[in-house]
Structure formats: structure tokens, C-alpha cells
């Protein structure tokens, strides 16, 4: 399994400069849009939390979309998936490797977003905004986003392992569509409500028990998705 994890990692590394460029573009575009886009916006009045959430969400969704699309498309390019199938690995190990890689990628992106937000907090202190309070709001949102991405992937990956990226292209568009959907007020409110509920649970249960419970549920779903993918991939002709 290490071999396929390593192959995925190498491909990720090769594309890292593109990712970083895309992140920078997102931060600049979303940030500039928020600060200069509105008529009544004063820099001191910008809802920094919303800005952070917007940027973080966009980055997370972009990463998952690019990563997943790239990984599954690369499998099909150049007969790599046939050659990979000839390596001393079972198909179950190939699927487990990909799930582990994607999981690690989401965790990494979440950590990177937290770090970016930390930097932002340092930056916004000059506007006399309570930075620590701000981080307390953004933190659960980022964790919730990571969990939501895992839920999304749990539905996407079985289709991709079953049909491949060429036939199952439509599931790849799902994360790209979600930020768009977030522009609809109802969807956005629903998401914020979920985050608010999570925040309340967080406050009530203390020490993140609510997040632990949510993470457990998502973990179960991800595991079930892994098992389903293993079964579907085992039947697929490459």
C-alpha cells in the first residue's frame, strides 16, 4: 500500500505549486471582493469571520476537487491503473491507499487553513477586533468543513472506483457546485445553522465532545464508503 500512497504523494507534490498559486488567487480575489466590493463597506466593518470562512471554504473545496479529479484522472491516463493492478497489491489495498491519502490531504488542508487564519488574526488585530473570539468562531467552522468534505467524498469515491473518472465525471463536479450553492441564501443559512448547532453543542458538551461525536459519525460513513469502494473496485474491469 505504501507504493500507491507514495505515487499519489509524488503526483500531489508535482502539483503543489499550482495549488499554492490557486490559493493565493482565492485569497486575493475573495479578500478584495469582500473589502472593496460592497457600497457600504468600511474596512473596520467588514465581517472578518465571514471573510475567513469564505476563503477557507473555497480553498478546501478547491483542493478536494483538484486532488480528486487529478488523482482519478491520472489513474486512467497512460494505462497506470492497469500497471498498478499488476503490482503486488490487492485491489482492496489500492482503495485503502487512496482513502488514506485523501483523508490525509483533507486534514492537511484544514491545518493549513487554521494556520492561514491564525496569520489573518494577527493581521486584523490592528483593526481593534477581538482576534481570539474570532478564532473561536472560525475553528468549529473549519472542522465542520473538513467533516462535510469527508461526507461528500464518502459519496463520490465509490462512484469513482466503480466507474472511473471518465464515466463518473459528474460526481467530480459536486464539490465545485457546493460553493456556488452557498451563494444561495437558503443554503448558506442552512450551513450556518448547522455550524451554529455544532457551536452550541460544542459549548454545551465542552471540550469538543460534539465534534468528537460528529467526527465519529463521519468516520463511520467514510469507513462504510471505503468498504463499498473495495467491493465495487474488485468487480471492475480495468
Amino acid at each position: 500500500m505504501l507504493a500507491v500512497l507514495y505515487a499519489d504523494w509524488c503526483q500531489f507534490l508535482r502539483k503543489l505549486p499550482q495549488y499554492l498559486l490557486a490559493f493565493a488567487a482565492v485569497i486575493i480575489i475573495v479578500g478584495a471582493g469582500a473589502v472593496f466590493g460592497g457600497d457600504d463597506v468600511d474596512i473596520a466593518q467588514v465581517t472578518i469571520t465571514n471573510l475567513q470562512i469564505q476563503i477557507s471554504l473555497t480553498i478546501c473545496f478547491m483542493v478536494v476537487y483538484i486532488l480528486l479529479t487529478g488523482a482519478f484522472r491520472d489513474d486512467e491516463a497512460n494505462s497506470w491503473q492497469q500497471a498498478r493492478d499488476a503490482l503486488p497489491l490487492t485491489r482492496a489495498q489500492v482503495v485503502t491507499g487512496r482513502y488514506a491519502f485523501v483523508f490525509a490531504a483533507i486534514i492537511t488542508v484544514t491545518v493549513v487553513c487554521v494556520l492561514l487564519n491564525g496569520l489573518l488574526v494577527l493581521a486584523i488585530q490592528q483593526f481593534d477586533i477581538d482576534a481570539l473570539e474570532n478564532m473561536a468562531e472560525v475553528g468549529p467552522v473549519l472542522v465542520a468543513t473538513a467533516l462535510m468534505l469527508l461526507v461528500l467524498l464518502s459519496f463520490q469515491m465509490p462512484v469513482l472506483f466503480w466507474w472511473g473518472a471518465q464515466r463518473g465525471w459528474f460526481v467530480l463536479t459536486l464539490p465545485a457546485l457546493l460553493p456556488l450553492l452557498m451563494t444561495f441564501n437558503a443554503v448558506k443559512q442552512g450551513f450556518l445553522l448547522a455550524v451554529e448547532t455544532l457551536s452550541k453543542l460544542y459549548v454545551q458538551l465542552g471540550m469538543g465532545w460534539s465534534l468528537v461525536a460528529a467526527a465519529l459519525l463521519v468516520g463511520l460513513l467514510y469507513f462504510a464508503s471505503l468498504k463499498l469502494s473495495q467491493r465495487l473496485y474488485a468487480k471492475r474491469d480495468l
Partner: protein
Amino acid sequence: MSMKAYVGTGAQSAAHFAKKSLDMDNKLPLGSLDLSGEICDLRLRGIGKSYGEFALQSVSLDVPRGSIVGLVGRNGAGKTTLMKIALGCVKSDSGSVELFGKTRDNLSGTELTALKARIGYVSSVCAYPLQMSVAQVATMYSLAYPKLDYQLLENLLERMGLLKSNPKPHRSYAARKKVGELSRGMGMKLQLACVLACGADLLVMDEPTAGLDPIVRDEVLDILRECMGDGTKSILISSHITSDLEHIADYIVMLEEGKIAFASDCDRIYDEMGVAHLRGEELEHLLASGYIPAGQIRIVKRDFSWDVLVPNRAQFERNFPNFAIDKATIDETMTLVAKGELR
């Protein structure tokens, strides 16, 4: 190839041949091969697989230990599908795959992994992720194959010009070159180096010489010959370039429309079989003689003659001393089997 001088006499009658007592043998029929008694690293039995209109129909094939089996056939005959079934990339609808004496379907995950570690696959294209570098491919192989000889891999890559001699070979320009930047020949050499260094006992090679220039093709064939030196490795190789197979293959199996149309050991093709070049009346004489049983004579019409596949050249020459006959080649045999009219 030297064409024998033609001294045929058209005046000889069919009756003359019919009367003549013919020297005939009772060997295996033309194009059949029985390797069931051999120790085989790969054994396919009754493989069936259908994709829409195409179907592999009960194909059986053996790759005896220490031998090279060449798989030939037209595009779409089913060669790649058969190889994919052997590797497990495609599930067959019927039949069984035996790897090193063990039936694949009965293996546990651990057993299957252990057996797959003894198989090396070489694709017709350099089938590694395009973004990976040569050094990264080498590292990936070392992670996948427990028996990989890293020193041998480096030596092979260096010999093939993929990893220039350097105190820090993994930092060299060649090692950092991406798979996508390699030429076709270099890509093929990279695959070969990897499968040879991983200690594979069975190599499955899907058109490894396709698209290579003659010099690189020779290098690839030389490496294959070397790796077969100790007689412990086996190779299943498909190719359109039959002259390559003539140099290295021990057995030839020809697929035609999903079925095995012809199988033979190469020595039999070169030493025993022949292609007779007959004029019209000579062909009639041959047919009338009953030398080759009716329904088993394969004939192709040429501009001025008929080519006939002959199972035993020496015997044919004894029976028909005035007829022109040449040694058979894989190419001619393929043409006669695939396009020949059966009479």
C-alpha cells in the same frame, strides 16, 4: 530467405500423385501444442470473456517455466484482453487462471500479493504516472516489491542511459526527468529495468517493441535474452513485429477473433513447417493426392501462384520433389492461418 529454384512440371497428372504412395506422419495436427505435462508459471484454461460483439472463446494457454511464449494476432484479436485476464485486471466470464501452479480465484489476499510479487508487467506504453520522475518510479517499485534489488535497478538504469553515472545518481538530471518527458524507447527501458530488478519470475509484456526504432528494439531484445539466461524466468510476450519473436520466442500462439487459431513451438515452424508456392495445376495435384487431409489445407492466392502451408517440409519435398517450398516464417504462417482459405 532463399527461394528454391522452381522446377515444377505442370504435365504431371493428379492421378499420378494419387497413385503414388505418400510418406505421411501422424504427429500432432498443424497448429496444436500440448504443454500440459510441463511445469508452467502461467496456465490459462478455457478462458471466456465477451465485450459486446467481441468474445474470447475458451482460450487455453501455457507458459512453461524458462520459456518465452509469443502471442500474435491481428489488432482486436484479444491479445491484450487475454494478458489483462492473466494479470487479474479483467475478470474472465469463464475458465481459470493458474499462477505458479495455484488457481488465482482460490488465493487469499496475502497469497495473491506474494504471487504477484513474482510477476512483472510491461505495457506497450510507459505505464507510470506521467508526473513521476525516474527516481520516484524506482522508489515506488522498491516499496512495492520486497525482493527488489536496488543496486541492480540502478545498474540497469545506468546501463540504459536513464540514470547517468553520478556520485548522487538520484539528483542527476536524468533521474529527475519525468515519465511524461521520456521517449518511447526510454520509457520501455525504464519498465524493463523495474521488472527485471524486482526479481519477477514471470514477465507479461504487451507489445514491448511496438514503436521502437530498430536499435532500441535490439537493445530491448538483448536484455530479454540476458534475463532468460539462467532459465528460471518465463515470458509471455505479444507483438506485431513477428521478426522479434523469431529471435527470442520458444512457442508461438496465434489468436484470431478471440480463439486460438494456431499454436506451435518455434522450432517446429522453422525446422519442420514450410510454405509451398504452387501453380494452379500443382495445387490441384496436391489436393487430389490427399497428402494434407481435406479441410486442413490453408491456401492464399498470390499474384502468380498459390501459397500453401505445409506441416512437414522435408516430407513434402520427398513426396513432391519438383514443387517449390521455403521454410515457414511466423509472418507467413500467421498470414496463411488468418487469411488462408481452407480446402
